[in-house]
């Protein structure tokens, strides 16, 4: 089936800013059952867009705006076709654990085993693992991951506004509240601790009925874990479902820090405010969107940061070590 996606980021600045530089990871991936049928991206004010593929295979667009502006609008439109997903087995045999070896794992898998900015162990995480009886995986890796997904789903309440884009998982762990990004990071940290390469997926979810806890018309996040006999398999701890036809993958990374939809800086002493609008509709064939933009609360985009204050500037100059003082 086809989905048509429209994703708008609107930055408003309290005073004119200049020299905006931005990177965008908004183009849905085209691999496996998901095929990208069309994609357009535009900015207002207009800018020359450049693109590259990062080492994780994500399409990245970037641009700069020298002249002053008080508003920056980035709009991406995509049509994605989702094909049939292979059926997952009920369970795997216990020998699967032994298949996590250097014959089956490559650099990209190993890189999804270490600590990363948001997915790292902490006393709060260990205490949650103890309470929820997650210290050791139960059963084969697939069963264990499904159990982990359900446990996170059952242990946490979905609530937006408690955690922010940059919140470490400890905030969610302490309050047992959070949003998709937090649940994904918690699941990643635990699964990696078990020795299962696990990565973060940013994308969109087509909502159906009220069973989904995450918000409609917003970006979504879930995880993928590597099972040697199946490949990368998705898990959505926010909704306790296996990501399939309704999940549209935009980018993968070690955690959110690798794949924010927008990342940027600007010069000028102004504050910025970000509004995000996402609409996602099934469609028979590629269609044009009308002006039915629904504005949602920003959830998983990084607002651009203003230039750093002078104090920090001086401090950082001094921090550069210059390999001056090596010592025996």
């Amino acid at each position, binding site marked *: 089936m086809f989905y048509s996606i429209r994703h708008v980021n609107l930055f408003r600045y309290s005073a004119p800013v200049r020299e905006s530089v931005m990177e965008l990871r908004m183009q849905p991936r085209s691999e496996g059952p998901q095929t990208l049928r069309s994609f357009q991206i535009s900015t207002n004010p207009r800018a020359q867009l450049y693109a590259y593929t990062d*080492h994780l295979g994500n399409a990245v667009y970037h641009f700069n705006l*020298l002249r002053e502006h008080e508003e920056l609008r980035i709009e991406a439109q995509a049509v994605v076709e989702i094909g049939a997903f292979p059926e997952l087995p009920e369970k795997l045999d216990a020998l699967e654990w032994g298949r996590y070896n250097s014959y089956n794992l490559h650099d990209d898998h190993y890189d999804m085993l270490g600590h990363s900015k948001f997915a790292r162990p902490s006393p709060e995480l260990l205490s949650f693992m103890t309470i929820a009886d997650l210290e050791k995986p139960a059963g084969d890796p697939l069963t264990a991951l499904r159990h982990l997904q359900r446990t996170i789903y059952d242990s946490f309440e979905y609530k937006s506004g408690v955690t922010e884009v940059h919140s470490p998982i400890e905030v969610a762990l302490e309050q047992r509240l959070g949003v998709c990004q937090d649940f994904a990071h918690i699941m990643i940290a635990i699964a990696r601790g078990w020795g299962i390469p696990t990565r973060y997926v940013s994308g969109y979810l087509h909502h159906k009925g009220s069973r989904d806890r995450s918000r409609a018309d917003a970006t979504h996040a879930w995880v993928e874990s590597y099972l040697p006999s199946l490949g990368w398999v998705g898990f959505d701890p926010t909704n306790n479902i296996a990501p399939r036809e309704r999940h549209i993958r935009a980018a993968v990374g070690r955690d959110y820090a690798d794949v924010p939809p927008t990342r940027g800086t600007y010069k000028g002493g102004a504050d910025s405010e970000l509004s995000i609008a996402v609409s996602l509709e099934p469609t028979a064939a590629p269609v044009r969107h009308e002006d039915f933009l629904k504005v949602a609360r920003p959830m998983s985009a990084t607002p651009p940061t203003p230039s750093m204050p002078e104090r920090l*500037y001086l401090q*950082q*100059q001094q921090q*550069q070590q210059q*390999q001056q003082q*090596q010592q025996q």
Partner: protein
Amino acid sequence: MQQEAFANTEDFGGPDIVAVPGRLARPGRDAPYASYELARAFDEMFAADGAVRPPYAALDSRLSTLSLEELSRRQQACEQSFLHQGITFTVYNDNRATERIIPTDLLPRIITAAEWARLEAGLTQRIVALNMFLRDIYGDGRVLKDGVVPRAMIFGSKHYRREMRGLPVPHGAYVNICGSDLIRNESGAFVVLEDNLRVPSGVSYMLANRDVARRAFPAVFRSMNVRPIEQYPLELLATLRSLAPFHEDVSIAVLTPGVFNSAYFEHAFLARQMGVELVEGRDLLINDNVVYTRTTSGLKRIDVIYRRIDDDFVDPLIFREDSALGVPGLFNAYRAGNVMIANALGTGVADDKAVYAYVPRLIRYYLSEEPILDNVETFLCREEKSLNHVLANLDKLVVKAVGESGGYGMLVGPHASQTEREEFAAKVKADPDNYIAQPTIQLSTAPTFVGKGVEARHVDLRPFILHGAETKIVPGALTRVALKRGSLVVNSSQGGGSKDTWVLSQ
């Protein structure tokens, strides 16, 4: 001013320097060596029996004719010269005024042609292997697949830059400027202590020291066929140019953190010597994926950047977002090939102190050669056997955190108190992968003027290696001196000084 200070010490009219090899100066008894101690360490000037080593004969002859007052005058002239040139260095973790001149010692340290030939071959071999290693881990990862180096060590390194994966660099040269630290061990052999592959500094002191030593001992200098080093800035310029071979008129800039950085003097010095722009991050901007510097006459394109800021700070868009020193968008311009950056990003993963232990293996792996220069014996705490050895012998070892430099995050076992050792042991146990240990090494000693005479002080050696289209090592080095008697700490941040290094042409 400096010339005047030296004017009355010129020995142009003096007798020719007559080298008397093997003269017994009896260190510890004769002036000016009355308090010169020959200990366990290898001494650069005196053999164990007190005989002057042949390369130092001319210097010894000259010293025996100079009064202490005269030596003091010349020493003061050297210091004056540094002060006037503004050759200063900033010491951190110090609440007082932080700008200091680097103490300089007027007595040169001498390296023979044969010793240098070996150093040159060994350092070339090493930088070639390290560059192949970097190209490998940011490319196919053959060395990881073959299990020569553990993956966890690379992917867990804080200096590993995933963004560099699959990105080609000119000539496959990631490390264009390297400043390796070597020491001479008790048996007189040079061994490599550290490869500094990120932003090595100190080359300006190498050049400044040459000025003072040449003026302090002009006749000795002339008599000894010392190889010149003054061409370093031009060699550096050629290396930087070779990174952008397709440009006819390559525009180069030195990117400095700014005037408050400890090595700002050097950044300004090198830019001036090369005749290129000295810029801070805020002087640069990216437009349409091309780097420009703001000048009074508008924007000017930059093709090659010799950056003296850490990877983390280069581009707030890609790396540390709170970096105020970097240039947003610089990395993408680099990725597109619109600007070259020396050193390439991500070189720090290869001068990690844990990777250091693997360098001999890397040389064998990539070049099928035996290492010409040895490493200092290194225990990796990530290996359980080594960890136990380290914890049991903390009082004999130097323990270092793998990602740090400059004497930060380390323990010098023999000089530490019991409490310090216990605290450090806890840190090591908590994160063994992050630590390595080495035996305390007796750095060699060299004659150093200390006011009341010439005494032995511990020294190390930092040659500077340039690697672009080809490898070049200017025949010289920065010799750092631990000015406190018995001290092994040569760091300029911790009271070390430096002296000139004379590489002989025959």
